[in-house]
């Protein structure tokens, strides 16, 4: 009996361990975790004319934790923009200054970082998170603070929840799904399409959009199959894929490790489908892991180094300063600073409401990600680049803009 009790304790301990590692990250995931502590104070506008002090922009970035690496790129993108603006004379005769706080790659960390930034009354706008789940956690604090916050999370709901202070600097998941479906059906002419997706909030949300978009184009998917993040073996899914007779495969996968393993197994099992993947397929990690298993596949991405003239110019400047090509992490923060600066130039003063109105009035602004035209929801972009993997490098294939 004692032994059995011991086993039960051990199982409980195991359960503890599962929850400990199960709470891992899901990039772009949409689940909100807890509510932010209301800060109890709203940000004040910076003092008006005659100032010579720099204009402060806050930035919430992961400096520690799992997303630390992407945090570095987000930091560099924003810093490059500030440097360029200051070199060109600044805004309203004042220099820009970034104030950065670590979000520790957690939701509570992101909320705490934002609150700390809001304490500084000289901060006129904030660059928030690229992770949807963190943005969701920050929402109540943002609504309370009434200060413009740039976000990079692509979850559709973030700009559709009635919070007027959130501005998105990447196209949302609804657009990527529409581009995936449109490209597969209209450009590639495939009618038998399978969809494989991660079962987290990000993957399920994306899958719903893809299936909806496919149906709108008159295509009923032959297979829709989810898997859990961290899956190590895709044999079961891939045999079903083979049996479904699909000519094309659309994936909405969250982690590049999972994508890499699946890509290898697709090749091993000799499955012949045209693969069009959501942005994770274009991640550097996926290419490193899967190698030639990804040759010939298509992917969609919001940022492409040679996507437009503005992208090329940004990439050159970035490369000159940091010695490597930029990615979407650096592109969206660069754009956020640029658009904030443009709005501050246009606005009569630096009150949050004036900046907000100025951002909404921005039309045709050429950013590194694409051309910004903000709608009333705060969505600035509605394009996706389709890229093709040619022997390991992603080449621009076609840019598709969704015009509802």
């Amino acid at each position, binding site marked *: 009996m004692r032994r059995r009790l011991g086993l039960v304790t051990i199982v409980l301990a195991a359960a503890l361990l599962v929850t400990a590692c199960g709470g891992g990250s899901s990039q772009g995931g949409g689940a909100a975790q807890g509510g932010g502590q209301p800060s109890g104070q709203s940000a004040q506008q910076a003092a008006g004319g005659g100032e010579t002090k720099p204009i402060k922009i806050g930035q919430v970035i992961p400096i520690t934790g799992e997303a630390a690496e992407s945090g570095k790129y987000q930091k560099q993108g924003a810093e490059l923009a500030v440097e360029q603006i200051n070199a060109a004379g600044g805004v309203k005769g004042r220099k820009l200054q970034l104030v950065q706080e670590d979000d520790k790659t957690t939701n509570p960390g992101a909320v705490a970082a934002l609150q700390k930034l809001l304490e500084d009354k000289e901060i006129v706008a904030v660059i928030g998170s690229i992770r949807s789940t963190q943005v969701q956690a920050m929402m109540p604090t943002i609504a309370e603070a009434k200060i413009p916050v740039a976000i990079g999370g692509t979850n559709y709901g973030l700009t559709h929840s009635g919070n007027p202070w959130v501005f998105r600097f990447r196209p949302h998941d609804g657009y990527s799904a529409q581009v995936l479906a449109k490209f597969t059906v209209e450009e590639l002419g495939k009618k038998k399409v399978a969809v494989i997706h991660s079962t987290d909030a990000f993957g399920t949300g994306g899958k719903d959009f893809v299936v909806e978009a496919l149906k709108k184009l008159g295509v009923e998917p032959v297979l829709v199959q989810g898997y859990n993040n961290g899956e190590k073996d895709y044999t079961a899914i891939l045999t079903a894929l083979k049996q479904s007779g699909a000519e094309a495969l659309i994936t909405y996968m969250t982690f590049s490790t999972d994508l890499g393993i699946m890509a290898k197994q697709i090749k*091993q099992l000799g499955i012949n489908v045209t693969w069009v993947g959501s942005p994770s397929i274009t991640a*550097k990690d996926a290419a*490193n892991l899967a190698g030639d298993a990804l040759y010939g596949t298509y992917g969609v991405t919001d940022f492409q180094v040679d996507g437009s003239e503005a992208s090329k110019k940004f990439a050159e400047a970035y490369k000159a300063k940091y010695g490597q090509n930029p990615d979407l992490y650096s592109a969206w923060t660069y754009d956020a600073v640029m658009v904030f600066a443009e709005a501050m130039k246009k606005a009569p003063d630096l009150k949050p409401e004036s900046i907000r109105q100025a951002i909404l009035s921005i039309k045709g602004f050429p950013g590194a990600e694409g051309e910004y035209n903000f709608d009333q929801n705060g969505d600035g972009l509605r394009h996706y680049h389709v890229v093709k993997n040619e022997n390991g490098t992603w080449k621009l294939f076609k840019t598709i803009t969704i015009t509802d």
Partner: protein
Amino acid sequence: MSESLPIVGQLLFTGLSIGGVYALVALGIVLIYRATNVVNFAQGDFSMLGAYILVVLTQGAGLPYGLAFAVALAAMALFGLLFALGVYYPLRNRTFLPVIIATIGASIMFQNGALAVFGPSPQKLRPIIDAGPTGGVTVGGVFFDYQYLVTLVVTLVLVAVQHFFFEYTLLGKKMQATSQDKDMARLLGIPVTAMIALTFIYSTFLGGLSGMLVAPIFFVTHKMGAVLGLKAFAATITGGFGDVKGAIIGGLALGIVETFGAAYISVPYKDAFAFLVLIIFLLFRPQGIFGEKVAEKA
């Protein structure tokens, strides 16, 4: 109908292969449990550490693969000694619970340490048999991954060796005696502390080896050991706690149940099948398939 045969064959091979990996990790858990009555929740992370050491030696230091493999195994054995001294030894006179909690703590520390040192980007390792464009061979419509074949063979060989060692060698018997009654073993002149240290050394060696074997298939991440460890733990309970045969049968069975469950019932609930089996066994046959060999203590 003729088309479904290769599919069943493919699922069977995949299930057995994954199960073999679980079994390999489970062997380490069983060993430590037999020697100390402690379940080591850091066993899965030994796999992760072994894989990272191999990454550092091959890609960082540029050693040839064979040499790097041997050095990594030696490093893991040394690491086992440190683990025994640092995690087990200070708590050796306490009940099993503080030690288990210490291993959970060590597991969290290893994962975060790996994250801090190596970053979140997964790393790639070359397979042992680096041949062909797919790294395997297709026979009768079934794809055999060389790396999985190697893993299965290594698992079976190690099980045989381990069985022989415990049942037929003096050292193995001393280790068993230590696990059954430390005080009695000490009275009989068995160096208990050394026996236990030896067990930890061999277990980390096994854990590291399992990691180096699966890394080419799973890629190397700081989390790769966590799931492995839990599945292996489920395998040991299913097979019969503390039983070497049980660990391997439990591991293989778990792999097959998972793979077929995913194919014919539900993919998202794949992990649930393994733990469902675990719960059913705990409810109806807590001693597992083969029962427990270590005698009940008063």
